[in-house]
């Protein structure tokens, strides 16, 4: 007899699939087999794999119980800076499941999927118009792949001019990790640019690092401090004067959508996270979609596939030998990108329209500034002035306490909130980056502000409760060091520790 698991009211403990499932259990029925002779040849094998199964009732319960251990936007405010955790409209989920979108194969005859191609074409038009850019690559699977796409195009452009020697990519120290990682992955040399005390790119440092090997700069705008790079026009001029390209990380497009056209900033390429600005759900980590818009200069280097309207038919150019792709830098993934995300994002765009999208950025920026001005007195704003769609605090307000940023975040969990992004960007000590998004009500934001104030108060009087937080969660604070030192990365009958 197994030992008893201890649940508490509505909070159920849930063992691992491998502990509750069975090799002879299944939640899927099949018809009888015929027993034909196998045609697989010598790689045929019919031995035990070891994957336990669950009947449908058990499976549903397993995952429902697990789900209840998660925080979600649907259940509460999720002010995770840089992640744009806005509401995910349910209409989008419904439409993405229409069989005409979800049940079509990427390689079925083009004549049989004209609606799908038209949809991709239409979302392309929207994105180009919203960004004021002239070309687009839809296929990147997330922001980071969008960065690869943009930087590959730049690499290809340099190559086409015989400038392979331009190897240096300038990246601000406040940049998201994907920026330097992307540049390095493509063989560029990453040069870090300092930020000023005002949280912007240090122009002097920037200029000083430009030389003949200068290839491109990767600038995030609004940057990860939640601030608009006021000098962006100057920056782009310098870049172009020096024969380089301006890549813009568009992860923070939610601050600008409908409000300005990034094309006006003089950028050459920018990715857009459909899973941020355009509300496709984060799904616990993905999937995403990171289309990249391009300036004229880079348009011809776009990757395959390319979708075009020819007459009243839609065509897809997918083979790199195609005449429309002669200068293309190649292909980033199989097939045509994230159709499921395009449907959701286009549904979002159509729902809002031009007027609604402008309201989105205004409300997002307004909400962030409202939080900033409400908490400025008790916390420590990292920077002066107005912020964009997110507000950055440093840990000065915790200085004379035993509480650190991490403790503060964990205490916020106990109060029913998902913490803000912490310790990012790196340029601010003990950073707390708060992004409310436009889909929080004022009532909800006010509640958040009250809670923050309460917590700040408590840092003086009761620092212990911060160290012990969170205490109302399915598990207490977890030992991450142990996890990394003795990595247990999968279940085994007897536990193994990987990578000793």
């Amino acid at each position, binding site marked *: 007899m197994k030992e008893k698991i201890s649940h508490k009211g509505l909070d159920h403990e849930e063992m691992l699939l491998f502990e509750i499932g069975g090799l002879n259990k299944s939640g899927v029925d099949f018809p009888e087999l015929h027993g034909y002779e196998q045609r697989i040849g010598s790689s045929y094998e019919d031995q035990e794999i070891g994957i336990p199964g669950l009947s449908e009732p058990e499976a549903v319960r397993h995952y429902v119980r697990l789900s209840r251990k998660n925080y979600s936007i649907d259940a509460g405010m999720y002010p995770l800076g840089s992640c744009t955790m806005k*509401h995910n409209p349910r209409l989008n989920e419904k439409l993405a499941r229409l*069989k005409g979108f979800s049940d079509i194969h990427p390689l079925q005859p083009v004549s049989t999927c004209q609606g799908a191609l038209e949809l991709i074409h239409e979302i392309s038009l929207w994105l180009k118009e919203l960004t004021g850019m002239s070309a687009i690559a839809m296929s990147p699977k*997330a922001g980071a792949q969008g960065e690869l796409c943009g930087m590959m195009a730049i690499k290809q452009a340099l190559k086409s001019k015989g400038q392979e020697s331009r190897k240096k990519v300038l990246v601000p120290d406040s940049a998201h990790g994907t920026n330097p990682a992307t540049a390095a*992955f493509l063989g560029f040399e990453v040069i870090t640019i300092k930020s000023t005390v005002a949280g912007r790119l240090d122009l002097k440092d920037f200029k000083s690092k430009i030389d003949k090997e200068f290839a491109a700069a990767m600038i995030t705008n609004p940057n990860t401090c939640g601030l608009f790079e006021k000098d962006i026009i100057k920056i782009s001029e310098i870049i172009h004067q020096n024969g380089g390209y301006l890549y813009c990380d568009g992860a923070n497009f939610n601050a600008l959508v409908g409000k300005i056209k990034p094309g006006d900033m003089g950028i050459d390429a920018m990715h857009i*996270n459909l899973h941020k600005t355009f509300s496709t759900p*984060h799904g616990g*980590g993905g999937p995403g979609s990171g289309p990249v818009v391009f300036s004229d200069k880079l348009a011809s280097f776009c990757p395959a596939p390319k979708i075009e309207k020819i007459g009243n038919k839609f065509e897809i150019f997918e083979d790199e030998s195609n005449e429309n792709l002669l200068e293309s830098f190649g292909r980033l993934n199989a097939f045509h990108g994230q159709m499921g995300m395009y449907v959701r994002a286009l549904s979002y765009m159509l729902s809002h329209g031009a007027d609604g999208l402008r309201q989105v950025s205004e409300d997002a920026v307004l909400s962030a500034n409202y939080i900033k001005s409400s908490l400025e007195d008790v916390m420590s704003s990292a920077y002066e002035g107005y912020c964009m769609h997110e507000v950055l605090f440093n840990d000065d307000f915790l200085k004379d306490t035993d509480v650190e940023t991490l403790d503060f975040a964990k205490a916020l969990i106990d109060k029913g909130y998902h913490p803000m992004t912490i310790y990012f960007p790196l340029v601010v000590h003990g950073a707390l980056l708060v992004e409310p998004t436009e889909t929080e009500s004022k009532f909800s934001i006010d509640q958040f502000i009250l809670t923050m104030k309460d917590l700040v108060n408590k840092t003086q009087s009761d620092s212990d409760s911060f160290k012990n937080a969170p205490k109302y969660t399915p*598990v207490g604070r977890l030992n991450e060091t142990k996890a990394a030192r003795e990595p247990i990365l999968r279940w085994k009958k007897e536990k193994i520790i990987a990578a000793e």
Partner: protein
Amino acid sequence: MRYLPLTEENRNDMLDAIGIEKVDELFSDVPSDIELNPKLNLPNYKTEMEVERYLSSLADRNLFADSTAFFLGTGAYKHHIPASVDHIIQRSEFLTSYTPYQPEISQGTLQYLFEFQTQVSLLTGMDISNASMYDGSTATAEAVSMAQRITGRDKIILSNGLHPQYASVIKTLLDKNNQSLGYSLNFSDNFEDLREKISDKTSCVVVQNPDFFGNCHDLTELSKYVHSFGSLLVVVVNEVVSLGIMKSPGKMGADIVACEGQSLGNPLNFGGPYIGLLSSKKEFVRQMPGRIVGETTDIKGKKGFVLTLSTREQHIRREKATSNICTNSGLCSLAFTVHLSLLGEKGFKSLSKLNHESAIKLSKNIEKISGIKILNKTFFNEFTISLPIEAKVFVEKMSHKGILAGVPVSRLEPQNDQFKNYLVIACTEINSGQDFERFSKAAEEIIS
């Protein structure tokens, strides 16, 4: 606007609290060269009903698999997905949460990922797996990149049975010195060619199994040969359902395995989102890209899960990271693991066998059609036929009869005339005898 909770009154109150009059003041950092509130050549808001009708009208213009006799594969397969899968992935707590950065309120996601990693490791026969990549093609590229780092070598050798678009991705991203990757799509890949090219400069050899044309390979010998050069064997699996009745890549000696996992839990979706699986031997774990979940304990000693080994990743290591990947295929991995948990050993094996039988049955039907030749000696649920007419023309005509007949090799390799009449046909548990008869009947009409 239905998604925006702030009322005009709220907005005014908030502006007041900030001490400004107009929201545009908040945008005062935008230099004047940039136009604020530019005119957009786009329509204004639409009601939910309008959006639904419009997008439905686009959807209606696509011929979807369920309404046809359907035979497409080559890296994207139609399988029956149990209804409970979609119910579970739509749970708010899974759908609308972020990457589990705060483990104490993300144990749901973390535990299923831990289970997912275990399932993938068992399927591939490898020690460890990560928490998913974008898709099979990018997982393959990342596997190659891993091999380059592990071996400290640049050279890559691709087998000629690799999916052409996968080859393209590798070429685009990893062919650092514009070397020849030795790739040229070829039906009968007995690896002779490949064996010849291996040297002690080779970081890895990439083999797809079953290959692009559907041929099945026992890689046991090849892996030994590859290892004798200090190179790694990267095995690519496009159709994970095949792993139910084929030797696992691990058993055959693979060092790194990259799979397209779409077949389990994920609909065709016109090509995305899909889910890349990436597994390896445990000694390579610190070269793994992407997120990995590990087990640990909380302050009271209670078991729990966290993202771990993050010093491999871009948000910690920046330009020194193993990869730039951040967002992965979270929800698709949930769909995968739910479907596989529902199947279990018993169901997965039945599914695998049923797929194989389905393909055998189709092959028996097609063998009877004069003028069409099946090229494969071996296959799992997919094989290649040679037609008396251009495959492209054939599928177009078949589609008019409500049959989506397969993928012409020329769709992917139009420049190569030898493949003009080749058609790759897949067959899964969704195909019934009726589909086979429709195929035969229509094919006979078209080619006669």
